[in-house]
Each structure stands twice: as structure tokens, then as C-alpha cells.
């Protein structure tokens, strides 16, 4: 994915990401999907390459890359396996939170092994009764001597059951977002119970489970920033998370587009390559154009975040909404160009479609993205 002002260093990062995707992700993606395998050894190998610590600050042991570099790297990785790359983005997001806001003791305890991929992280915000309305979450962290006692349930937690370090948003104060705090919780703490592995449409190379907390003790030092800051931290993390998810949609849609380009030259009907039909050509031209728009929007949003621009949240929400919708559409077009072969599992296109569907739902639904955009543009 080249840009005109790409630096040679960026080009080098992307070359490595592409090689890794082609050699270590793509050949296995279909099997991981089919058999719902969470490829922990591959995630360790990804960490050795630097992919599990991309934008964690250098001062905390990460690579300290920009969101722009990270976004383009995630896009390359997702060309190999959308679902595995998407898990990497969640791990990166949590590592970044710990690197920025954990106490020194907690950071030293949990971050080094996360950056080397020896431990894996989950982000725990959504609850059965609080999805889009996350500010209304009910999981309680009650103050006790030396720490907190955690009670409640989280749902749809990516990686849960196979990860080691959880960042849990829980209520330490009154109702509403201002009563929420962010806590680091060890995944095997006493009192934690995991639900069954959800059977999903896509994102099958990573488990999704409920987590139940029953009087789980969390020491004081595992509180991030201050009591009451948790919702703000969670939303800050999601600004980047939304760019990351959009990146995974973009990379996957590029993969589908490239597959379609090759396929239409090869497939013959009515005595000629289907690439010779004007409809095919126009569809491909639209796919190319949409991908270019998405790529530029992604880079622009990432640059807003890198610059800590006051409109970063707006830009990230708009980009997430637009890119995840349009890239899904691009994959759908690629599927249509493949005809019946697009629908069967021997070709990767149907998996791309299933994997991208959820990007329009998680890290804030695309309706919630529209609410964020509308609230901001109407405020001025």
C-alpha cells in the first residue's frame, strides 16, 4: 500500500509486514477459520517481528511507531489473515493503555511479557446489558482494603479464555461514564469464570467469550490513572482501535480486489475473459476508486490522532464507519465477480466477507459512529 510521501523506513516496515503475512498468516488462514484455531505460536512470532508492540511508547519498551505506520502495517497483515491481524490490533491497543496509564509497578509486571508476545491481552468493556451504551456498564469494583473487589460480567471479549492480562472497565463510583475506572486484572485470578467459546460467523482464529467476575480481588496498583478516568481511557483507546479495525477492513478488501483482478483475466465465459465485459471493468474501476478513498481517509484519520488534533475522535469515527462499510462492499463486489466460486470455501473471498462483517459492529457500531460524528458537527 504505497503513498506518494512514503518514507523508506515505512516502506521497509511494510515489506516486512507483507512477507510475514504471506509466509506466516496467509497459508494457514483458511484452516484457522475452519477449525477455530487461535494461533498463539504465530502471535509469538509476530511479537518477535515487532507487531505486538507497534505503538506502545518507546519509554515503556514498545516501538513507539505512529498510528499511521501502525495502520498501514495492520492493513498489510490483514491481507494474510483478517481475524488474526484484528486480534493483534486489540493486543496492541491494550499494551498501549498499560504503557501509558498503568502505575510503574503494574507496568513492569504486565507489559514486558505482553510486548514479547509471551502473554496476551484482552479489552473488556462490553456487557450483556451495556453494548452501545457502554457508559452504563454495571460491573462493580468495590473498594476494599489494599484494592478492589470485582463483580459482574463482560460479554464478547476477544481472546478471552486464552489471554493472560485483562483491562477491565468497572464501576467504582456513581452512575454514568464518570463512575467508571480501568483496572488491570490477571486472567487466571480466583473468582474468574469463562463462558463457552462463541460460535461465530467470522473472526474464527480468535476465541470470543463471556467473562464472569465473582469477588475477584484486584490490588490498588492495578488501577490505571485515577478512579473515574476509566471511561475516558477506554474511549481514547478506541479512537486508535477504530483506525486499526478500519485498517484490517482495508487490507482485506485489497486482498479481495487483487484476487478479483487476477480471476477476471483467467475466467472465460461466452468465449472471452470476463474482464472484457464492460460491467466487469466498471466494477473493478469502482473497487479501485473506493479503496483509494478509504486508504486516504485512513491515513488522514491516523494523522489526526498522531497530531493529537482536537477533531481526532470525529475523524476516527467517520473513517471507521466509512471504511468498514465500503470495504465490506468491495469484498462483496469481488465475491460477485467470482460467481459461484466466490461462495465456496475453496476460495478466500467468502471468508473475507464473513470476517469483515463484524467490523461494522464492534469497537462501536457504525450507527454509534454516526452519532459521534453528528454530535460533533452539530456542536459547532
Amino acid at each position: 500500500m504505497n503513498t506518494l510521501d512514503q518514507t523508506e523506513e515505512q516502506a521497509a516496515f511494510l515489506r516486512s509486514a507483507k512477507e510475514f503475512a504471506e509466509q506466516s498468516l496467509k497459508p494457514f488462514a483458511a484452516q484457522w477459520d475452519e477449525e477455530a484455531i487461535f494461533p498463539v505460536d504465530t502471535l509469538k512470532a509476530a511479537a518477535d517481528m515487532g507487531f505486538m508492540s507497534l505503538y506502545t511508547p518507546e519509554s515503556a519498551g514498545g516501538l513507539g511507531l505512529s498510528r499511521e505506520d501502525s495502520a498501514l502495517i495492520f492493513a498489510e497483515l490483514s491481507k494474510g489473515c483478517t481475524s488474526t491481524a484484528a486480534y493483534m490490533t486489540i493486543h496492541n491497543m491494550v499494551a498501549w493503555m498499560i504503557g501509558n496509564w498503568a502505575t510503574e509497578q503494574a507496568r513492569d509486571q504486565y507489559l514486558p511479557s505482553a510486548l514479547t508476545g509471551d502473554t496476551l491481552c484482552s479489552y473488556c468493556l462490553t456487557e450483556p446489558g451495556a453494548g452501545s451504551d457502554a457508559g452504563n456498564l454495571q460491573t462493580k469494583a468495590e473498594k476494599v482494603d489494599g484494592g478492589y473487589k470485582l463483580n459482574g460480567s463482560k460479554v464478547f471479549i476477544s481472546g478471552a479464555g486464552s489471554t493472560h492480562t485483562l483491562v477491565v472497565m468497572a464501576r467504582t463510583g456513581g452512575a454514568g461514564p464518570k463512575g467508571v475506572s480501568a483496572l488491570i486484572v490477571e486472567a487466571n485470578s480466583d473468582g474468574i469464570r469463562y463462558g463457552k467459546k462463541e460460535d461465530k460467523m467470522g473472526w474464527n482464529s480468535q476465541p470470543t467469550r463471556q467473562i464472569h467476575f465473582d469477588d475477584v480481588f484486584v490490588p490498588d496498583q492495578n488501577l490505571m490513572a485515577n478512579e473515574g478516568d476509566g471511561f475516558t481511557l477506554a474511549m481514547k483507546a478506541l479512537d486508535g482501535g477504530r483506525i486499526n479495525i478500519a485498517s484490517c477492513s482495508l487490507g482485506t478488501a485489497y486482498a479481495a480486489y487483487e484476487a478479483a483482478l487476477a480471476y477476471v483475466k483467467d475466467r472465460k465465459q461466452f468465449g472471452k475473459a470476463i474482464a472484457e465485459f464492460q460491467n466487469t471493468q466498471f466494477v473493478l474501476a469502482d473497487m479501485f476508486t473506493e479503496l483509494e478513498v478509504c486508504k486516504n481517509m485512513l491515513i488522514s484519520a491516523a494523522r489526526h490522532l498522531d497530531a493529537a488534533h482536537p477533531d481526532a475522535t470525529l475523524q476516527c469515527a467517520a473513517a471507521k464507519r466509512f471504511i468498514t462499510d465500503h470495504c465490506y462492499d468491495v469484498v462483496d463486489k469481488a465475491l460477485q465477480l467470482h460467481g459461484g466460486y466466490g461462495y465456496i470455501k475453496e476460495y478466500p473471498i467468502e471468508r473475507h466477507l464473513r470476517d469483515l462483517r463484524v467490523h461494522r459492529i464492534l469497537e462501536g457500531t457504525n450507527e454509534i459512529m454516526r452519532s459521534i460524528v453528528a454530535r460533533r458537527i452539530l456542536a459547532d
Partner: protein
Amino acid sequence: MKALVTCKRVLDPYIKARINADGSAVNLDNVKMAMNPFDEIAVEEALRLKEAGSVTEVVAVSIGGPKSEETLRQALAMGADRAILVESDQDIEPLAVAKVLKAVCDEEQPGLVLMGKQAIDGDSNQAGQMLAGMLNWAQGTFISEIKIDGETANVTREIDGGLEKLSLKLPAVVTADLRLNEPRYASLPNIMKAKKKPLDKKPLADMGIDTAKRIEIVGLSEPAERQAGVMVDSVAALVEKLKTEAKVI
């Protein structure tokens, strides 16, 4: 033992080469460039020899414009220890390349020079051989295997009709063929560290080397488009076509 590896910046091998409108040269404006793939293999082998304990230092060398620094950074990111860029605005011919490398070898005194068997742009396949001649060192070209044993390098060469095994007395010049290894790709932390590794620049003009052109390019043309195949219905028809159309028998 120090190993010197050569790295040329060339047109990306996965990009279709296009000739300038006036037919004088391959168009290099705004096209993707990369390290010559055979040089990448040479770098990889040097790093493996270092990991095996046969080599103590890997020095990457390139001759080219300012952008060749990026090609050297790639070698450094893969694991080379330091780099030398001989700065030259013009693309010099194989004889001149060999002379420049000889000067670098005189200064650096490597025990082994590893090069790609050829650069995929000019495809000359001459620089390694000429360098060995100028240094009066042993040479092993088109190698698919190398083992260092004390003062000798045992190499396997890919030759027409088979493999040839040679023992070379060190110091020696070897050139890498495709099957020597599969080059590694750099990790992101190593790409970042490569920025801080030493890279010396010497202007070619200061080296006192005659690099005047001795080869005149008369013209360039794109390869003929591949024609669609035809099915023949008998051996006789095939033989007839080979005689009258392909004119190969």
C-alpha cells in the same frame, strides 16, 4: 574473518520494466526500486556464516546515488554490521564496478567477498569474475552452497548439467545463485536499529578510478509479446512446424 557483501539498488523485480520514450534506457522515474535479489541472497549467506562463527563482521557495500543508502539500510536491518556507500551519480559499467570494489577490498582486507551472481538490471554477470581477477584471488561463481573450513571455502557451483564442488583458498570472491538460501526479512526493531548503524560515504570521484564508459548502448527493445499457443493434431504436424515456422530443427 571479515566478509564484504555487495548490494546494488535495482528496479523492483516484481515490476514490469518500461523503456523510455526515446528508447535510450529503462525508465527509473517514480518506479519501485529494491535490493538486487541475488545480492539479498549474498547478504543472507554472509549473516549465516557469521551466525555459524565463520565470519566475525559483515560489511555491506554499494555503489550508487543517495538512494542506495536505503538499500544498504536494508542490509543493515537484516543484520550487517556496517556499510560503505561509494557515491556515484552515474550507473557505472561492470569493469568500473570491479575496480571500485578492488579499491574497497584493498582498504578493508576482507577474507571473503560475497556478491550476487549478477544484477537483474544489466544482467552482465561480470563484476565478480573481474574483481577476483584483479585481486588475484580464488573465485567461486553461481554457488548454491558454501562452507568455511579454516583457510578454505568449500563451495558447490551450479553449472550446466550438474553441480561442481570446489575448494577455494581464502581470501576468495564468491557469487550467489538463486538456490543458495532464502533471505530473511528484517524485524521492525532491527529496521529501527539499522538507522543507527555506521554507514561511511566516499565519493567515487575522490577515488582516482577511471570509470569512463567503454560500452555503447545501441538500442533497447521490450521482449516480444508471447503468442498464444496452438494445438497440433499429430507428431508429423509438430515436426513440420518446428522445421518451417520455429526453424529450430
